[in-house]
């Protein structure tokens, strides 16, 4: 039986090689390209930039980076103390972080009871409930956002407004769409499963006997939740929050479709610079800074997650 052994060796090779190859091909390489673009100078051509790395007529490689975009970001940061100064990038960055934080918080508040109920339910119904959480993924993400548009719209197609009008509870359609509220609703709706699943994975491991022991030792239900359940699901909270917060910061489609452009997000900013403004180096620089800034909290959260009081080894 030579074949299985061969397969095994190959399998092992691919299992070790594939993730690294994938990361190299689809993360490291593109990221290096973006860094290259961010350090180049704008030019009216296709593509609209000149790479800082060039092959001179003497056959030597020349490195002539242009750090203008980074300088602009630094200047905005320097002008933080001045009231009224124009800081388009920092403002967009702040809006995005704020929205992502709010989305994460709301997802946590809604998702925790979800995950808790699923984890505490009978083993046979758990699979069904989990399936229900994942069910929205069976429809295209874009379709679901459009569905929200038709729900929230204030014209005749807006289902919620029409229902409220028909019930006689309101006389004028409510301005539900094209504001930050609509964006939050869309974000929470889209990202909730990413909070529920990691939370569930941690809560389902929670030993019921610990809760019984706490009850037996005189703890009321609220105390049990705060002193046993919550600390022991800490890693799930960290994991779920990361899964929601990080993609939420760069979210472009939901604010664009549901926000109607009244709140400038960092994703929108990058889109504008790549598109209408034709300032690729600036857009690339913002993207690079975003990645670097997100790596910080990820590392922090990871370490915190590991050393958390609730960590079960």
């Amino acid at each position, binding site marked *: 039986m030579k074949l299985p052994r061969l397969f095994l060796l190959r399998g092992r090779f691919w299992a070790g090689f594939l993730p690294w190859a994938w990361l190299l091909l689809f993360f490291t390489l593109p990221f290096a390209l973006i860094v290259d673009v961010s350090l180049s100078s704008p030019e009216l051509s296709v593509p609209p930039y000149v790479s800082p790395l060039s092959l001179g007529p003497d056959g030597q490689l020349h490195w002539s980076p242009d750090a203008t975009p980074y300088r602009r970001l630094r200047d905005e940061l320097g002008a933080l103390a001045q009231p009224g100064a124009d800081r388009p990038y920092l403002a967009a960055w702040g809006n995005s972080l704020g929205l992502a934080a709010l989305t994460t918080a709301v997802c946590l508040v809604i998702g925790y009871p979800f995950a808790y109920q699923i984890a505490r339910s009978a083993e046979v119904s758990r699979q069904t409930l989990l399936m229900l959480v994942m069910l929205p993924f069976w429809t295209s993400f874009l379709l679901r956002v459009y569905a929200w548009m038709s729900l929230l719209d204030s014209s005749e197609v807006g289902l919620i407004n029409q229902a409220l009008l028909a019930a006689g509870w309101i006389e004028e359609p409510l301005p539900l769409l094209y504001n930050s509220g609509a964006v939050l609703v869309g974000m929470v709706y889209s990202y909730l499963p990413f909070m529920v699943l990691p939370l569930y994975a941690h809560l389902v491991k929670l030993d019921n*006997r610990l809760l019984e022991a706490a009850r037996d030792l005189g703890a009321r239900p609220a105390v049990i939740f705060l002193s046993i359940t919550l600390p022991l699901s800490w890693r799930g909270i960290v994991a779920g929050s990361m899964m929601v917060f990080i993609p939420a910061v760069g979210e472009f489609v939901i604010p664009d479709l549901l926000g109607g452009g009244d709140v400038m997000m960092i994703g929108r900013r990058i889109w504008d610079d790549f598109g209408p403004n034709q300032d690729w180096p600036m857009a690339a620089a913002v993207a690079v800074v975003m990645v670097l800034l997100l790596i910080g909290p990820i590392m922090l959260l990871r370490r915190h997650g590991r050393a958390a009081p609730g960590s079960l080894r």
Partner: protein
Amino acid sequence: MEDRGDAQGDYLRIEGASKRFGETLAVASVTLAVREREIFALLGASGCGKSTLLRLVAGLETPTTGRIVLDGEDLSALPPHRRPTNMMFQSYALFPHLTVAANVAFGLRQIRPHMAPKQIAERVDEMLDLVQMQAYAGRRPHELSGGQQQRVALARSLARHPKLLLLDEPLSALDKKIRQRTQLELVRLIQRVGVTCILVTHDQEEAMTMAGRIGVMSPKGELLQVGTPDEVYEQPACRYTAQFIGETNLLGGRVTGGRLRCDDLPEPLALAEAGRPADGSEAWLSVRPERVRLSRTPVDKADNQAPGTVDNIAYLGSHSDYHVRLAGGRTMIASVPCARWGEDTAPVRGDAVWLSWAAPDGVVLTR
């Protein structure tokens, strides 16, 4: 140990408690009284409902019928966190994210009105001192051995001065060697604290070593018999108890002329006079292997005896178990001290031998 009147005979009263899970009856109408400061063991095979009964007392399950009264107070209406009972859980259920000291302090922190932090710290010290775990106060449960975890769990369940301590398979998570030493240690601690204690175990040795009285439960969740370890061993009330506790030879038949007639034995068996069932009733005779005499020749004055051949011998050091096949095909076990043979050579497999026992050595059972 203490002299108390009959009024204290029922510090804890379980009155007709049943618990039904769907179609299965886990606890079948158990009535039981436990005395103050007593260590009482509920003994039964796994799945017999003994743990459920313990959980009914703790309030972790609600009885389907019946009630539980502790020290004159009906517990039925109280949720578990208000009951003056504390349980030491099987495999301990220590809080993994808390230190040893914080585990022990947990129950104390729930007491209302609040205890002063200094009082809590003192009580924790006292408890850790009791179980000799002061040196480990700052450790986490996963850094402790099984025996150490057991001691922390005990300290935690005693910290609140419970009126009743409930132990659910307290030592089943430990190695056999440590278990035997820990049994006596645990009894000493419980007696020193002076707490009334119900212990659940499937291990008859554990029950007999630790408990003052034992309640034997059937696989159907009924309480079959309550008695001291020697009572349940020497005077089993039914066949299940006789067979569950220790080894026994069980001979079934019908009572005829004051004797027990078994189909496969030539002679009807002589029965002790006390408690002899009426003629014609079905009965069983339980004879412990150590009560059966084994000899190479018939004995002069024996109430019961039967010839047979040695089928198998299990040498167990202090004694040997002889499996003897009788003429009718039945196999009986005779337990013989190894020192007994002296100069004589011990019988070997295939030898013809005689088994005999006195009528009072057999216990007559009717169920």
